[in-house]
């Protein structure tokens, strides 16, 4: 490890990041941590949710100390302002996930019409299953015709015609009844986002409770709508993930090969790049420029998608995206949308790395724009790979720093794969939970945030949970953190408690299961619905919890809300901007449990978060009549 990198240990727990921060400091390159420090002190009004910019009678703020103004110009008090702000975050997150789903449905439609060369239907059985859920019979239809019909039906989900989203039928009846009673049954994906924006306009919904309920409905239209469609359609077009080995951290970059990274979210782009790098013509070109091959690796969610389906390695999570460029070993980064920092283009200018944006929705400073559409994505991907290969000649070998060797991990645990590993039914899993060998299960999900020591939250929490015989399912940036810490190797079984270790060994799985990208958080709630239906209970009765130890994004707010609204108590590691409203805070941290059977906790310390979750799981076990360790 380079000298002096110990001072970066306070910022990040992982050695590859520490090494790169050393490079950044030496080279004078500004990072996300530098910009965070420059922002301090961050405005307390905004942090408490007490500032409002929704209209130009303002901008307004509420004094948390009670002496200054207590209402905005329109008369909105702190409860209304704070809740409106949270609800707009939910809308933004839901819109992001749902647009991602929309783009996949567009590809499915194009596949059905034969206008998407390079894309196909990888899993016809899943296509048939999902089509049948939408009331479309596969009889007498070719897969293309079925794909087209399903695409039309899914596009319908986005609009105003329906009174309930189709995939809500997967949840237990008790859960659906709760949503009906609260009037939060999601009706249309875009509709709920649109209504959320309407309600938060000045002078519309000025009741913080009904605002929050619409926020829940909007989030559910994401979790059981846009995101779920994204996951299911990705599985249909690109394949349902199955267990496979892979590798993770900066060590996946190869000294002697052309390194191409994909960043962003939609497999619509990354899958085309993955096909292009295997093209024999490209491999030949690589040899001619002196490289031994072409190495594709992923960043963030699109990396998660490629890893789950193809075992393609991951170079890093959110806080690694700037640092990976500083290895000097990356010929090209191809991005689409979401979580891509606008600082990347300028940083790449200090290196030979080419930065390419591909989405008409997402442009960035200092990135070359090469727009991908279903009809030409395959060709454009090949052109980009060619350009990346030629760029290998511009690599400055003396500047290359690949500071670590890659860590192994297991990946690919879709619900279908899990069922297959269990022998075709959930019964073996249910039996081990009843017997107490596995106490329960937790989804450890979400992003990184420079406010929390990088990867410390995810890894510490996950270790404590598996030590206590709790199965961990992970997604997104959390999944990368846990993989880098070696928690998804078979050897990690030794880190688990006795019961979980026994089950993991019997099934030949790690104690932490990679479930996918952030839209694949829907795999977790779908699994929860399956379990609840199998046991004849509601999701909120199950010994489950959610945790987002280092979240930053609006999408994370939406996910947390749909997970809680679906009945799973969730612990957040960074505090959302709600403290300015005592009423809203009290609701989210307590009263909401009376409504939906689950609540939020906020606990930055992962050791304490683990204790909260363990106690919660044992409570649920007791309530189900199972053996429980109640202190």
């Amino acid at each position, binding site marked *: 490890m380079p000298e002096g990198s110990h001072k970066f240990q306070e910022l990040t727990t992982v050695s590859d990041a520490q090494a790169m921060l050393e490079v950044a400091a030496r080279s004078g390159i500004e990072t996300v941590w530098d910009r965070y420090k420059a922002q301090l*002190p961050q405005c307390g009004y905004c942090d*408490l949710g007490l500032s409002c910019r929704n209209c130009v009678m303002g901008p307004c703020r509420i004094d948390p100390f009670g002496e*200054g103004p207590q209402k905005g110009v329109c008369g909105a008090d702190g409860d209304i302002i704070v809740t409106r702000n949270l609800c707009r975050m939910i809308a933004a997150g839901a819109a992001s996930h749902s647009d991602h789903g929309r783009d996949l449905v567009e590809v499915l439609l194009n596949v059905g019409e034969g206008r998407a060369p390079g894309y196909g239907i990888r899993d016809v059985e899943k296509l048939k299953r999902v089509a049948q859920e939408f009331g479309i019979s596969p009889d007498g239809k070719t897969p293309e015709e079925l794909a087209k019909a399903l695409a039309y039906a899914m596009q319908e989900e986005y609009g105003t015609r329906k009174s309930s989203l189709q995939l809500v039928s997967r949840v237990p009846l008790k859960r659906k009844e709760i949503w009906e009673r609260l009037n939060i049954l999601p009706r249309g994906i875009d509709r709920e986002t649109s209504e959320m924006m309407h309600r938060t306009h000045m002078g519309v919904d000025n009741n913080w409770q009904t605002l929050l309920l619409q926020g829940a409905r909007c989030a559910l239209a994401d979790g059981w709508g846009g995101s779920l469609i994204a996951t299911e359609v990705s599985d249909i077009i690109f394949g349902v993930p199955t267990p496979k080995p892979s590798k993770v951290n900066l060590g996946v970059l190869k000294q002697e090969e052309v390194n191409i990274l994909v960043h962003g979210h939609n497999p619509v782009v990354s899958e085309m790049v993955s096909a292009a790098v295997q093209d024999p013509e490209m491999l030949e070109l690589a040899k001619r420029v002196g490289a031994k091959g072409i190495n594709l690796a992923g960043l963030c969610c699109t990396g998660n998608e490629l890893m789950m389906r193809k075992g393609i390695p991951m170079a890093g999570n959110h806080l690694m995206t700037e640092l990976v460029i500083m290895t000097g070993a990356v010929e090209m980064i191809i991005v689409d949308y979401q979580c891509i920092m606008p600082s990347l283009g300028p940083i790449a200018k200090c290196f030979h790395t080419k930065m390419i944006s591909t989405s008409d929705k997402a442009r960035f400073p200092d990135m070359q724009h090469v727009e991908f559409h279903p009809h030409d994505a395959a060709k454009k991907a090949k052109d980009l790979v060619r350009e990346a290969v030629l760029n290998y000649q511009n690599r400055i070998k003396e500047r290359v720093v690949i500071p670590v060797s890659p860590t192994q991990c297991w990946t690919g645990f879709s619900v279908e794969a899990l069922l297959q590993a269990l022998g075709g039914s959930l019964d073996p899993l249910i039996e081990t939970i009843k017997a107490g060998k596995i106490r329960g299960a937790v989804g450890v999900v979400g992003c990184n945030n420079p406010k929390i020591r990088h990867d410390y939250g995810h890894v510490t929490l996950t270790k404590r949970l598996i030590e206590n015989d709790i199965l961990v399912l992970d997604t997104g940036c959390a999944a990368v953190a846990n993989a880098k810490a070696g928690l998804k190797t078979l050897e990690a079984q030794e880190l688990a408690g006795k019961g979980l270790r026994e089950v993991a060994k019997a099934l030949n799985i790690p104690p932490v299961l990679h479930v996918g990208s952030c839209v694949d958080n829907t795999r977790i709630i779908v699994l929860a619905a399956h379990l609840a239906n199998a046991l004849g209970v509601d999701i909120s009765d199950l010994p489950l919890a959610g945790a987002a130890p280092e979240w930053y994004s609006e999408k994370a707010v939406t996910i947390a809300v749909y997970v809680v609204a679906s009945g799973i108590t969730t612990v957040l590691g960074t505090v959302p901007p709600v403290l300015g409203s005592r009423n809203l805070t009290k609701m989210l941290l307590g009263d909401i449990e009376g409504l939906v059977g689950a609540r939020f906790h906020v606990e930055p310390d992962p050791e304490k978060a683990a204790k909260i979750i363990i106690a919660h799981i044992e409570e649920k076990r007791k309530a189900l009549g199972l053996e429980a360790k109640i202190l």
Partner: protein
Amino acid sequence: MKQVVVRPERCVGCMQCMVACAVEHSSSKNLYEAVFEAPLPAPRVHVAYAPGGGGFPNRCRHCVPAPCVNACFPGALSRDKERDTVLVDDFKCIRCASCAMACPFGVIRFHVSIQLPSKTVAQKCDNCIQRISVGKVPACVEACKTKALIFEDINIALQKRTQEVARAISKEIREEVVISEAWSTRLRFLSQYEGLRKVN
């Protein structure tokens, strides 16, 4: 006599005092025009990060005697006794920065003079004496909605502090005296984030 009194525990770090001060000391005295002026106006109060959360609004104390006045060679800095304010004369200032070296609080900065745009001069808080002369409060005080900056006689302000402390000591009231639950919760989370960085 009233003066600007700082209550740092109320500072939420929004920096509106800085914006208001700069606008007040611009040519146009109007936010929308001030941001396009050349030279750009500069604030004379400075908010910096106070570890543990919140900010600290740092302003000139108009000391008696003022180290900056003593250090100034050409006599550009002087004390206006009637208005209890240390002022800079842009015409006399030679930008030697002796005042800034002498000032232990770091509140003197150097910018192009609005009055004399050919010169860079020392700039510091002038107690908004122009505003006070027409019965207004200083710009920073007007901007601060949490009353971290107030315009008050210092002894009266401290008397109020004594009263707050006395209430806090009282056993019955002690649990009730939370100036802002939201604010103290936020500060608790912010120091937790810092605390978790400590390497074990």
